[in-house]
């Protein structure tokens, strides 16, 4: 009997929340349009592929060999020759202005020294202020130089009458799961997780604070309603909305960004449900603690967005972090769902390989749920 009464009350609250969301344009925008906008914005803005690195060339030799070398750079899609310059000062200047991030300097007598069998060197200047691009560009240079040297050596040997030489060890790499190494394939699943974390906490962060601000909480708390009934009544509709958002964002990833979905969507959905229960409870917790809509929104965004980006391992590798920070990352639910997302979408693995993540997400949902239930007060503020 008591359980039936509780269920009736939970349903009544859920239904009421649903009517309120439906009637409030702002809530609709927040819960349906915002996730789409965020996903599009992030996915287009966060492109980590380093392509078409702009280069300045200072060719002091102007020989056939120097031209060969420089062509092997300009023939790839990784570099774009921005300017040919006549002195070092110009390179400095171009790097300072940010017009180019790399300069290639071919020394005088490059060809003649090579022909006389002497060791020659080519100088590469890279703008290290953007260390990601610099590292990647440096990597490109190394591999281009490697094949340039190999071709040169082969040509010499051929000329000396030795042919049919093959390198003793041949490297044939094949990239699994993301064959073309397209960064969008790991960016988009991560973004979906971050957007879901923000949205789910954001929409629930308003529910309790709005009732306190409008004074309706004062009426509600004089009724025999219980804490857990308010909690579940508020949780259910917003988790459903968030699950709907998940369908939208995953579809966008699949259809607009052509991110593969190799595993089971149902499994992804069920694991995401655990995640959303946790993050939505976080929103309810924030809302009960602040009792102010403006504060709740700010807190919800900061508490979900920053850790999800910084501490989830999404952008910055966790194993490079100091020990204490590594421990903190265990408290960031996005960390687990990003792994799940990539595993299911890109690798096509099943839930059976994702037990650790499932356990941690369940723990997170239970602990945050319990705290927010405790935080939810049906008494007037002191």
């Amino acid at each position, binding site marked *: 009997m008591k359980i039936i009464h509780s269920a009736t009350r939970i349903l009544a609250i859920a239904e009421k929340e649903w009517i*309120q969301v439906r009637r409030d344009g702002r809530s609709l925008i927040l819960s349906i349009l915002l996730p789409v906008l965020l996903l599009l914005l992030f996915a287009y803005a966060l492109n980590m592929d380093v392509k078409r690195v702009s280069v300045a060339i200072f060719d002091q030799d102007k020989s056939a060999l120097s031209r060969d070398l420089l062509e092997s750079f300009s023939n790839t899609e990784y570099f774009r020759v921005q300017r040919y310059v006549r002195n070092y000062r110009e390179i400095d200047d171009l790097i300072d202005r940010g017009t180019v991030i790399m300069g290639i300097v071919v020394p005088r007598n490059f060809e003649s020294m090579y022909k006389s069998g002497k060791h020659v060197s080519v100088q590469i200047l890279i703008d290290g202020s953007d260390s990601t691009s610099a590292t990647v560009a440096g990597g490109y240079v190394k591999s281009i130089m490697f094949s340039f040297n190999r071709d040169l050596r082969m040509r010499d040997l051929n000329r000396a009458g030795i042919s049919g030489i093959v390198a003793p060890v041949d490297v044939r790499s094949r990239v699994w799961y993301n064959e073309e190494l397209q960064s969008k394939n790991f960016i988009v699943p991560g973004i979906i997780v971050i957007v879901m974390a923000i949205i789910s906490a954001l929409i629930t962060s308003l529910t309790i604070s709005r009732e306190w601000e409008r004074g309706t909480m004062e009426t509600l708390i004089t009724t025999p309603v219980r804490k857990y009934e308010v909690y579940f009544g508020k949780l259910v509709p917003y988790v459903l909305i968030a699950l709907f958002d998940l369908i939208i964002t995953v579809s966008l990833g699949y259809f607009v960004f052509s991110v593969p979905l190799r595993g089971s969507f149902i499994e992804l959905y069920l694991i995401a449900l655990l995640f959303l229960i946790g993050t939505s409870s976080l929103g309810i917790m924030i809302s009960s603690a602040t009792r102010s809509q403006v504060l709740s929104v700010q807190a919800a965004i900061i508490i979900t967005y920053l850790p999800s980006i910084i501490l989830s391992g999404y952008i910055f590798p966790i194993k490079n972090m100091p020990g204490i920070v590594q421990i903190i990352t265990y408290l960031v639910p996005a960390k687990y769902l990003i792994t799940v997302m990539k595993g299911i979408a890109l690798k096509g693995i099943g839930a059976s390989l994702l037990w650790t993540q499932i356990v941690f997400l369940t723990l997170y949902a239970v602990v945050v749920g319990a705290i927010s239930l405790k935080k939810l007060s*049906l008494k007037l503020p002191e």
Partner: protein
Amino acid sequence: MAATVAVEKLTRMFGSFTAVNSIDFSVSRGEIFGFLGPNGAGKSTTIKMLCGILVPTGGKGQVNGFDILSEQEKIKSTIGYMSQKFSLYDDLTVRENLRFFGSIYGLEGKKLSDRIAHAMDMAEIGNRGDEVVKNLPMGIKQRLALGSAILHDPPVLFLDEPTSGVDPIMRRNFWELIYNFSEAGKTIFITTHYMEEAEHCDRIALIIAGKIIALDTPARLKGDLAYEVYSFSVENFIEMFDYIQSLDFVSETAIFGSDIHVLCEKGFPLKRELGALMKKKNITNYHIEKISPTLEDVFVTHARKHGV
């Protein structure tokens, strides 16, 4: 007869500020009990403690036989509460609000729809049941809030300044509803700062700065007044008010519309004394008569006595 509501030494502090200062009273079944006092006197704080949404810092009390310190859950299902500020859901329709609160009170099926129909009927919502509450006039909102508070047919109603902000006609309608509840045996605890409203109550407690300074029926409160009250009307009464206030045989003065109420010791020949003074001032166009005291006279006298 067991009291429906009773408190002893009930106290509530907010930090070092004492909002309610050790008050005692009891309300019996079917009574309309009024709490009369200025804003900030502790009326709402008292009502909130009785409804179980604010914890007292001292004293004890019971509502419907349930302890206000330990049995708030039980109290909540046997009371109806109407807050000072309209606090139903603005963005829901009348019917949705009633459905929601009805379900929260555990009503369902036919019982729920019957009670909703009854509440709408009582509140004279008419055919506006499907309108969003936000768009309704204040008077209807107020009656809707009352309707919502009685959905589960509670034996006790707590009404916190229910008629503030509604016009006098609406206020009268509202009081008719309250009388009906009282006749049906329900206990009503109502706070107000309108004197004429307090006259409708069976008993009133005057509360100032957290303390009850007088508690009785309106008639007895007025009868117990230690002074006689005269109504004095004169041209430029504002200037005259200061003058009369300064006279040493005048105990209290208060402005009522364009009249001045003058209070003096019982048996004092005020009419004659004041008449002589007026003659001296060459004022002939005045009128003075002895009247029976109003609650406001009682209130002002008590308030002055307590240094407010």
